[in-house]
């Protein structure tokens, strides 16, 4: 066994971290969030130039990464800097496109930063259930049209192309009968965009007989989605880990500099023992991310259990780190101006992406029974 990053990944990590610390200060980030797009297109172009979008894809699709370890490295850095550009939607939709096949050109354009993609899968009543699809696809001749409502679509407004899940058969909660389609924006695609509490762009999307191109075969959707979500969930856990590390660093620094009763508050055992616990849990979190990232190519049950274990721990550890970071900062932790609260918001809101703590606990148990 070897837990070291290889040379390429160390380079990837260093390059991205350096770029972000030079170009992505938190005030700038707040500025991006305030724009109409809710992110910076200029930054996105620079990320493309730097090869960071390519790092999400394997070589066969024109990328130069795409493995679990690449995702881990990239997303940890994104989390440390609270990057709002649409890496996560790109990874989700891109993984589905890559796995379904036939869209190599589009992926190339995405890697180059020319086109943008998002996955429109979740629905208003679906909660975190992957197989919940009410949206339906109708076939007329060789062409498909899609109708239905998609909820909290990350990056949905800026995407030029949407990967949409829709039913070609089966009941609302059946794994069978889910198909994936490529949909370009048109009058038949109604987008209501908004920001999330932690500052990321998302949208509600209504499809009214939108014309659509089938990806993969009819009914191939569930397996493709599961793999795409396995990657994206691992990635978002790495992102959360990065944000937790940043929150921890700020807190430790504050404990050394803030004085009350004539001493740095870090001297109080009531605080420093809790921070010691945070440190222990962060080691656990890193290991959980490594376990998930390293098993993305394993058999389905192993992969999915590791992913669920990681996301469950991400929720529980994340809450501990976010809440302790605020609490130990006292009033400062409650302000907009001081960055720790923004990290706390990202960490907690990640619990609401791709299944929360309880969802993944239950799923881990069920997958264990199936093993």
């Amino acid at each position, binding site marked *: 066994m070897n837990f070291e990053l290889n040379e390429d990944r160390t380079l990837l990590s260093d390059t991205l971290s350096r770029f972000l610390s030079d170009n992505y200060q938190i005030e700038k980030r707040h500025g991006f969030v305030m724009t109409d797009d809710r992110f910076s297109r200029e930054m996105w172009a620079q990320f493309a130039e730097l090869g960071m979008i390519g790092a999400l894809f394997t070589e066969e699709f024109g990328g130069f990464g795409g493995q679990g370890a690449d995702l881990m490295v990239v997303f940890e850095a994104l989390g440390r800097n609270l990057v709002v550009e649409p890496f996560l939607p790109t990874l989700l939709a891109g993984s589905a496109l890559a796995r379904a096949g036939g869209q190599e050109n589009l992926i190339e354009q995405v890697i180059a930063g020319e086109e943008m993609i998002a996955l429109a899968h979740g629905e208003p009543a679906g909660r975190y259930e992957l197989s919940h699809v009410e949206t339906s696809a109708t076939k007329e001749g060789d062409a498909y049209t899609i109708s239905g409502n998609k909820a909290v679509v990350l990056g949905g407004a800026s995407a030029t192309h949407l990967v949409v899940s829709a039913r070609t058969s089966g009941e609302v909660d059946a794994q069978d009968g889910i198909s994936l389609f490529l949909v370009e924006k048109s009058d038949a695609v109604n987008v209501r965009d908004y920001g999330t*509490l932690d500052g990321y762009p998302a949208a509600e999307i209504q499809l009214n007989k939108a014309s659509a191109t089938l990806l993969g075969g009819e009914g191939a959707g569930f397996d493709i989605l599961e793999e795409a979500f396995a990657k994206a969930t691992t990635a978002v856990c790495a992102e959360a880990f990065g944000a937790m590390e940043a929150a921890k660093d700020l807190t430790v620094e504050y404990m050394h500099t803030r004085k009350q009763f004539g001493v740095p508050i870090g001297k109080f055992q009531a605080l420093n023992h809790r921070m010691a616990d945070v440190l222990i849990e962060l080691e656990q979190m890193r290991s959980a991310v490594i376990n998930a990232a390293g098993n993305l190519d394993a058999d389905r049950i192993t992969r999915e259990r590791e992913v669920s274990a990681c996301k469950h721990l991400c929720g529980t550890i994340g809450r501990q780190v976010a809440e302790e970071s605020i609490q130990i900062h006292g009033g400062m932790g409650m302000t907009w101006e001081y960055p720790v609260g923004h990290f706390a918001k990202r960490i907690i809101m990640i619990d609401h992406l791709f299944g929360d703590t309880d969802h993944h606990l239950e799923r881990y148990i069920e997958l264990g029974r199936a093993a």
Partner: protein
Amino acid sequence: MDLAYSQEEESFRNEVRSFLDAKLPARIKTKMKLGKRLTKDDMVEWHAILNEQGWLATNWPSEHGGPGWTAVQKHIFDEECWSAGAPRTVPFGLNMLAPVLMKFGSEEQKAHYLPRILDGTDWWCQGYSEPGSGSDLASLRTSAVRDGDHYIVNGQKTWTTLGHFANWIFCLVRTSTEGKPQEGISFLLIDMDTPGIEVRPIILLEGEHEVNEIFFDNVKVPVGNLVGEENKGWTYAKYLLTHERTGTANVGNSNAALDKLKKIAAEQKKGGKPLSEDPFFAARMAKVEMELNALKTTNLRILAQADAGAAAGPESSMLKVKGTIVRLEINDLARRALGPYALPFSSEALEEGYNEEPVGPDYANPIAAKYFNNRKMPIFAGSNEVQRGIISKTKLGF
């Protein structure tokens, strides 16, 4: 021992309910229900309605215009107000300054200030904390130097809740640097219209303007605005804090929040069934309900003793710690209950006039924001760490 409410208590509950039914403005009730931002006017309006009924200053003795209720009556009133969706009364004048004036203020001060708190002429804020003095409050540096009939005040207060709504501030100021830091503190009432005072907003992490920084630059305050004796302010400050903390058990507030959580959990679906039937979520809700029910009894037991004149020192600390933990657990469950719809957030949608179609369920928008906003609870009124320090010092002898 008798856990049942007496007949009189039940009929008191009915009286409170009919009052709330009749008098709580529907507009305010709706804002509360949807978690909208309250304006100062909303607060003023509700205070005036309560005052007209004689139910504004529930903790005051009847000689000063309080209703003279027992601890159980206060509890019933609090519970009913929260469950009807009434706004919290603003505590700075009513529950912080007033008890101090009653105990330590001059007859003149009582006669002047107390009625003005009731009728809304004065709207108070609390000037304790400073940038360098939070938990270590006694280290405060804002100075008041005697100059004839006045004190000249210089310095900075911070975290001042609703300072932008207030026209008066009660401040802890340093009048002496001799001896222990606690021995040079005085309790001063300052008119915020005095020249030299500047109020600047501090925006909280979820984007709300609730607290402020207040700067004092050679502010002239009449000597008559000193409460009690010079350099004895620390005693009054501590007395005030026990009152402030007793209100932080949050029982009525948590009770209403738990009811709301149950409704959300019954509406939200998981795998086609109500979330409230999901064993994982049901277990989490049950645990917090058990805690809250025990806390209700703890709260009443402690308040019943306080009624009989017992000191509310470390007990108020206990209520504060447990009360905030329970309240925050409910906030946490509420955001979980929403699933992905905890994510969308619009600050504009917190305004009363906003009438665009909500994203997700109509109750969703403020819920995650509230989870973050309420993280203030274990920090203010003396952090929970400081409360544990008080408990271990006074109860355990460490």
